[in-house]
């Protein structure tokens, strides 16, 4: 069985090692996706 806590911990650790510029592009386009799906930012 997948340990969710351990899996998310590994995911966060990987994310922490990603270069800031690439993180910014990921988060920017994630925002775009959320808004296109119809959830406007307040």
């Amino acid at each position, binding site marked *: 069985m997948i340990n969710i806590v351990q899996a998310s911990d590994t995911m966060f650790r990987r994310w922490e090692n990603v270069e800031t510029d690439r993180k910014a592009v990921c988060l920017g386009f994630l925002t*775009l996706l959320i808004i296109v799906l119809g959830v406007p930012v307040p």
Partner: protein
Amino acid sequence: MKMKQTVLPGLFFLLVVGIIARLIASVVPSVNYLIAAIVLGLVIGNVWGIPNWARSGVGTHKLWLKVGIVVMGAGMALDRVITAGSTVLLLVVTTVVMTIGVIELLARFVFPIHQKTGSLLAAGSSICGVSAVIAIAESISVRESRIAYAAATVLLFDAVTLFVYPIIGHALGLSDTVFGIWAGLTMFSTGPVTAAGFAFSEAAGQWALIVKLTRNSFIGLVAITYSVYYAGRVNADAASSVYQAWSFLWSTFPKFILGFLGMVLVANIGILSDSQITSLENMSNWAFLIAFVGLGLEIKLDEFRSIGYRPVLVVLIGMGIVATTMLLLVRTLF
């Protein structure tokens, strides 16, 4: 769940201070909320310091600045970027070459300082502040203390120009376009340029951002030029082969600019409605708000005391010459 434990309290802290700054700006007339966010952060950081539990969250402020810039791409009109493209590119090249030339001359012949410190100051002033200082330092191998010295000088000018530029802009009655291009061409780091631009007006902020990002993309080219120049004296490394040169150019290129360009393209092919673009701009403004609180919190006034008068004079006179020339040029062209 390490990230939740470490980053979230600091992010919440940035958000709370940001909202207070926004409230202050809505009460005090003619105070822009972005400038209020930086000032409030600066006061908290220097009077009480950053609380330990908030430190790692506050450290993410550069990420939020870049996220804000990427998302801001959605509000940018592509025709504006294309129409102004060639003129802006020419102005950027002129500014970069002129700034490096003037600062190098001043640092060598008028107020003699160590040659490599002069080069770091020239790079920081001409491209993108501290990140340029660090990129150039890596390519020409400089002592740690010289990097700190040059970075502190650049940060001092960032802190001052952030407030002085909008004041000059209003005093001279500059148009949004002229102010935005001028700030984007001649101020140093991306954060203060964005804050000063948007503090002046929305349109000025967009112009400042376009020009500044164009300037930032020259970082690799300038680093390679410096490494080739110093290679004869020290050792040939970064530019010793074409492949290495390209990989160095790519590794120093600020990749969030590609995200910004991608967002400009997505928004301009017409798949987004007006309300979606407004939502993206709101999101960008929130990201800028917390980024600028963090920027203010990390300005350490104590560190400026260690800077000598010569580097300050070199940058002050250099910037005075370049900023005046470029202002005259931009006013004539736009």
